[in-house]
């Protein structure tokens, strides 16, 4: 093993007494684009959570940027998460803060909120098509707007890896294509992208835009899929 930004070595994860993932190995190469698919409850979200350290494997070793995640203390874990942007299925905003404040949250917590933030923020929100919603509160946004805002928040620190959990789960086809386009653009900027989705049409649509590797979680293990998609 080596050279991957995130590497799972024979990972297992037990949940509620049962084994959800068993002997999973995966290496995300820098600048690669992956889809992770599988039926609901197969462990897609769990695998993403393992990748950004929200969960720790019950067996095996998980390396992120060459560091064994299990050996990181809380401060080191925080620094690691600044290198991994995550788009959650439920977006996870702070509802009492404006959209601009939510998107700028990673800058604020990393102490980079002072330098030219407003210009960058406006530019970033313009890129995801939310330039006019800076002062809106999260509950005032539609599902698609929330997903795009979550994507903006995930990339504001220019992370090396972007993980997206069902980013098109609550949006219509047109919006899902727009989100996919944004993720592809990020990949072209050199970011490693891993998208967990059960939406096969999204994967098919991506084929024309990016060279993606499609992984399927089935029976607690990861398999390479592709020909049938």
């Amino acid at each position, binding site marked *: 093993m080596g050279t991957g930004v995130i590497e799972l070595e024979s990972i297992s994860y037990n949940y509620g007494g049962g084994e959800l993932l068993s002997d999973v190995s995966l290496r995300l190469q820098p600048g690669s684009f992956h889809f992770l698919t599988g039926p609901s409850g197969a462990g897609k979200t769990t695998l993403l959570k393992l990748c950004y350290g929200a969960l720790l494997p019950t067996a095996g070793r998980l390396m992120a940027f060459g560091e064994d995640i299990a050996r990181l203390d809380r*401060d080191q874990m*925080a620094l690691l998460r600044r290198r991994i942007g995550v788009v959650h299925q439920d977006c996870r*905003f702070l509802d009492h803060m404006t959209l601009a*404040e939510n998107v700028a*949250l990673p800058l*604020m917590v990393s102490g980079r909120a002072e330098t030219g933030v407003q210009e960058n923020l406006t530019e970033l929100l313009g890129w995801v098509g939310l330039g006019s919603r800076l002062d809106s509160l999260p509950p005032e946004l539609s599902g698609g707007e929330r997903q795009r805002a979550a994507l903006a928040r995930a990339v504001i620190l220019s992370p090396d890896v972007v993980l997206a959990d069902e980013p098109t789960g609550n949006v219509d086809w047109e919006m899902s294509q727009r989100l996919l386009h944004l993720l592809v653009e990020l990949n072209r900027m050199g970011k490693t992208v891993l998208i967990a989705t059960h939406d096969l049409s999204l994967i098919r649509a991506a084929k024309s835009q990016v060279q993606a590797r499609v992984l399927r979680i089935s029976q607690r293990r990861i398999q390479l899929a592709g020909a049938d998609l």
Partner: protein
Amino acid sequence: MSKGDIRNLLRRDQRADRVVPPTGFTAQLTLFVSGAMAFLAVFALALSLASGRLADRWASELAGAVTLRINAPLDQRAAQVEAALTVLQQTPGVASARALTDEEQAALLSPWFGSDLSLDTLPIPQLIEIIEGEPGLDAAGLRLRLGAEVPGAVLDDHTRWREPLVDAATSLRRLGLISILLIGGATAAMITLAANASLAANAQIIEVLRLVGARDRFIAGAFVRRFTYRALFGAAIGTLMGMSGVLLLPEASDAGGFLTGLGFQGVGWVLPVLIPVLGAVVAFLATWFAARRKLKELS
């Protein structure tokens, strides 16, 4: 934690402070507890300072005075008083000695027997007031000499009742200081509870902050600042109210005795100003430790 860390934690950052919603019962609880405790601390401080003054006054006023009592039949009393005064004049450490007049003795007894007391009707001993000089009086030596030359003389250097009074005043001062410590401890406990409640209520916000890369120091800082400044504000109000209450107490007077001397005097008025600062320090430490513990639990 270094001075720089403390300064950074306390530095106001409106954007960072907004990550914790500004509402909730913990805000009112912290304000009320800090205010009430500061109010009580002002009175405990006033009590402690007044007790200290009283102990010092009693100790200094009584330390330099000794009383000689002549218990003798009426026909021998004048001679024994004369002999005692002669002995006292020859005794080193006696600055002055004089027999109290009948009026002065009647005044001493008037609280118990009324002002129209006639000393002729009671077997009252003659009192001689002795003022000690420098160096002090050798009470044991004087007693021996008086025993030989003035058989009816009893020397009272006030030790018997001065010490319990000074002890009582010193104990009151100690109680006042213990009260202040207890008030500080109770404040710390209440603010710890409020901080824990606030941290638990905001567990989801903490989770989001962690997901976007916030370190414990950033998250704890947002809570520490909020509770410290609330406690400072509440304690300032409580202290002002307490000082106003002390100002309204009656002035110290002989007629009122101890209870009318409870206020602050001189530089003593500056001490209550420290109460809000101490309240803020207590809140800072209580919230810091509560946040560190809770964040560890939530990880």
